[in-house]
């Protein structure tokens, strides 16, 4: 396996508040890395830095050996090689599902409409939504919208997918359909960086877990070890908040 994402000494501050404090880690090609941590610990910020949505104060991020330019005004086209799906629904409300999918490939990658549409339809089929191609986002349920959002990221052929709590805003009965899509992508060998609060899903999908707290990676390890035998007290406490034991 070769290294595809590499983060070196990443620091991110908002004025006085240090959100990411000297973070270093790397992701191998085909690896699924799941990031967990208490709310507000900087998980979203980390993904946003990787995708060039935030300026960073220190450190470097490499994609396939090339340095990612995180200055807002001069992206070097590397960021779009990482696909991102957000927690809140972010489809373009004035475009149909098919148009949502084909917009970026056509105008950013200058691909032919017909070819992109064929690919979009094939991808929609795979997530079970081909019947919705001419619907508008408002006509879809939350789970359906997130599946479309995943497809919209996929159709750009990203080398890495960044998923930021993509089921957090969903009604419980829709979580499954979205996670199944992600699980399938993992089986196909997609490289993914996933932030989630669904611990069982994390365990099932992850090759490696990262525990982020206070802007630092406090613990990392294989899922089995990570969940069964946490090494740090802080991770133990964090994992405990997800179990319900009658007192």
């Amino acid at each position, binding site marked *: 396996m070769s290294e595809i994402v590499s983060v070196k000494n990443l620091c991110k501050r908002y004025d006085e508040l240090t959100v990411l404090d000297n973070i270093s880690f790397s992701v191998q090609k085909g690896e699924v890395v799941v990031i967990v941590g208490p709310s507000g610990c900087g998980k979203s910020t980390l993904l946003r830095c990787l995708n060039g949505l935030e300026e960073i104060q220190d450190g470097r991020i490499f994609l396939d050996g090339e340095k990612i330019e995180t200055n807002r005004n001069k992206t070097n086209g590397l960021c779009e090689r990482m696909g991102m799906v957000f927690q809140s629904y972010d489809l373009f409300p004035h475009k149909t599902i098919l148009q949502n999918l084909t*917009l970026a490939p056509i105008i*950013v990658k200058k691909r032919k409409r017909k070819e992109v549409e064929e690919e979009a339809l094939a991808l929609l089929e795979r997530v079970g939504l081909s019947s919705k191609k001419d619907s508008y986002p408002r006509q879809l349920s939350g789970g359906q919208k997130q599946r479309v959002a995943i497809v919209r990221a996929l159709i750009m052929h990203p080398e890495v997918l960044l998923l930021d709590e993509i089921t957090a805003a969903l009604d419980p009965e829709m979580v499954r359909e979205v996670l199944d899509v992600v699980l399938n992508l993992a089986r196909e060998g997609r490289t993914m960086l996933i932030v989630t609060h669904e611990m069982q899903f994390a365990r099932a999908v992850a090759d490696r877990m990262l525990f982020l707290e206070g802007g630092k990676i406090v613990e990392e390890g294989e899922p089995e070890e990570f969940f069964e035998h946490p090494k740090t007290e802080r991770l133990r406490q964090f994992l405990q908040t997800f179990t319900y034991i009658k007192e």
Partner: protein
Amino acid sequence: MGFEVLFKGNNFIRLLGGLGLSLKISLLSVIISIVLGILVGLLMTAKNSYVKLLLRTYLEIVRIMPQMVLLFLVYFGVARAMGVHLSAEVSAVIVFSFWGTAEMADLVRGALTGIPAIQYESSRALGLTMVQTYRYVILPQIVRRMIPLSINLITRMIKTTSLVMMIGIVEVLKVGQQIIEANRKASPNAAFGVFATVLLLYFLACWPISCLARYLEKKWEN
């Protein structure tokens, strides 16, 4: 019922001419308001708080002041105070544009600030440049929100143009009054027929515009 006076001479044509003048004043004002309103609306979302304060004040003044006072102020006041002679029609267009620009600007501001940040971010995450983001994602959404609202503004303007007779412009309502005056003896009931007709004319001018607004609103609702 007083409708017969409409068929005397060229009375009906004169009424239509009056309506045409109202429509002309509204249309000119609307075009100016849309252009200036978009610019001012963009300025309203600026970070500079002095600019914001200034524009808020402008908006409040326009909302508080009756249009009639503004009309008198511009037509009689400006001419006296500055020695500039403005024709009644120019004054009317200035006042309606002053009003319309404020209203449009507020619509543009509302539409702009109503677009969630995530729309910009997901466009960027997909690799769109800032210009492409505005061109394909933000502006189409703004236009969809704005067009029905601005059409409503047009109908409000057409109705409000009835005020311009106060500064001597012979628009449809004024023509109506003149017809009634002229036929006071022969047809004492002319008032009903004439005003009912004026009402109908306003309705015929505004109704299709309203329908269009409603149609677009339905079509584009998100």
